[in-house]
């Protein structure tokens, strides 16, 4: 047998092959399984309705929900736009307010001591219980909705970003001091990048919460007419026993939540994949 034989076939290692096969299976299953399970659930939902002859005002089948979604698209889409506007506006204000407050907190211990309790009180009080008061004091209904959604959404951003800004490596902090960094330089070059992964974690939670806040606030605000969102359409459809429309609106809310979460996750990946542990895939 010659050592320089270039045609020697690659050595096949059974264990490695098994690993490769298992990995491949897992990659496919990751996408296929959820789709199959959801499809099966929808199918069973349909069957249960058909087999038991359940009337559509009790439980509509999935087909009817889709038909209603298409038929009522004009009304539902404008309601979706309203809910989406409130959600995104609340999220934006939560980001600005949460990050801004977090920066103020880390710049001044005394400021943090003074105002952190307020933030906690706002957070732990259920928004449903504050909302009626807000709608008494705030004339503009849209502003009231925004305020409610903001109260729910801003805390995770505030607390995560504060934690991140305070998590800088102490040696790096020393290094900045030795090199005579200004407070602004330290914030910009050291604290903000350190806080980024924490902030993005907060953003993912806040995205979902701002939608919940917007929906809850709409329920409380209740009044219809112009500028009514999905939650109001659900309430209204409930009064009219239009159950298929309730389901259609619900479907839109759930889809909105999924889209927001996915967008936040993609943003997180785009910003972190080059350097942060959470975004790095390891070969095991």
């Amino acid at each position, binding site marked *: 047998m010659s050592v320089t034989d270039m045609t020697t076939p690659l050595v096949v290692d059974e264990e490695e092959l098994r690993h490769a096969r298992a990995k491949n299976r897992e990659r496919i299953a990751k996408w296929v399984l959820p789709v199959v399970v959801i499809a099966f659930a929808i199918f069973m939902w349909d069957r249960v309705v058909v087999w038991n002859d359940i009337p559509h005002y009790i439980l509509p089948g999935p087909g009817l929900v889709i038909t209603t979604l298409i038929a009522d698209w004009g009304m539902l889409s404008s309601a979706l736009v309203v809910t989406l506007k409130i959600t995104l506006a609340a999220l934006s204000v939560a980001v600005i307010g949460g990050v801004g407050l977090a920066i103020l907190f880390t710049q001044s211990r005394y400021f943090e001591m003074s105002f952190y309790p307020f933030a906690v009180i706002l957070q732990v009080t259920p928004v449903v219980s504050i909302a009626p008061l807000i709608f008494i004091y705030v004339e503009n209904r849209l502003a009231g909705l925004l305020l409610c959604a903001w109260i729910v959404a801003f805390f995770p951003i505030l607390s995560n970003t504060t934690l991140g800004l305070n998590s800088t*490596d102490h*040696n*790096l902090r*020393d*290094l*900045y*001091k*030795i*090199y*005579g*960094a200004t407070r602004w*330089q330290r914030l910009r*070059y*050291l604290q903000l*990048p350190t806080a*980024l992964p924490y902030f993005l974690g907060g953003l993912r939670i806040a995205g979902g919460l701002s939608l919940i806040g917007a929906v809850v606030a709409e329920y409380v605000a209740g009044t219809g007419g112009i500028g009514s969102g999905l939650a109001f359409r659900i309430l209204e459809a409930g009064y009219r026993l239009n159950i298929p429309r309730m389901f259609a609106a619900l479907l839109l809310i759930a889809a909105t939540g999924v889209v927001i979460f996915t967008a936040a996750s993609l943003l997180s990946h785009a910003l972190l994949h*080059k*350097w*942060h*542990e959470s975004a*790095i895939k390891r070969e095991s």
Partner: protein
Amino acid sequence: MTSPNTIPPMGQREKLLDMVNIDKVFNGNVVALKEMNLTVNQGDFISLLGPSGCGKSTALRLISGLMRPTSGQISWEGGQNSGDLGVVFQEPTLMPWATVEQNVWLPFRLRGKSLSDVQDEIMWALNMVGLEKFQRSYPRELSGGMKMRVSIARALVTEPRLILMDEPFAALDEITRHKLNNDLLDLRDKLKCTVIFVTHSVFESVFLSDRIVVMAARPGRVSSEVTVDAPYPRTEDFRTSAAYADLCRKASEALHGAMNQHGARASA
């Protein structure tokens, strides 16, 4: 800063820094450092050697200005300017979100210089530590030894008058540590820089330095000084030479002397 072509022999070096009667007391009663006197000359490679709690890291923090002494004075020849100091910690202490060149840029960036302005300096420093091909890499893509090299490049890039190293190689494996020891001596030979190196390894201190300041604990203080009169450049051959073994024994004895002073005091 212009470097002389060779480091003058000990005794003929110009003074760089003086620590006079330095005391550092924490919480009113914990004496971290007592009556420390140390003169650092240009071109010195000083190791601070001692058991934990002897105040060697405290001494570094005092020199770097991160702490002020409780009493006593630290004076720089010609006054201290920003950029006089380069620091290397036990961990590489790199910013994970920044590339290698951005990390090395830091001392300049904090002085308001743009990356393109100091590109030459950065490449020079990376060249010095053998990482010129990795300027665009992120720290996570580098090995432990390479990260430490980036950290050293960052300390060198401003051509500081004094480089402080706080047990920089303690967390590395022995083979990498020896390699970095050799490279550090090469650097020192090229740059004629002055180094204060904290370590608790007798062997490392003998291999690297020309002055070993042996420190004792409780209270932290200078116990004795060992002069390592072996000539530079020192290579791997030096590590296996009789002279090296001899010097290590001398330094070990000095270190044990320092520990026994403490023991005698504790049992008294």
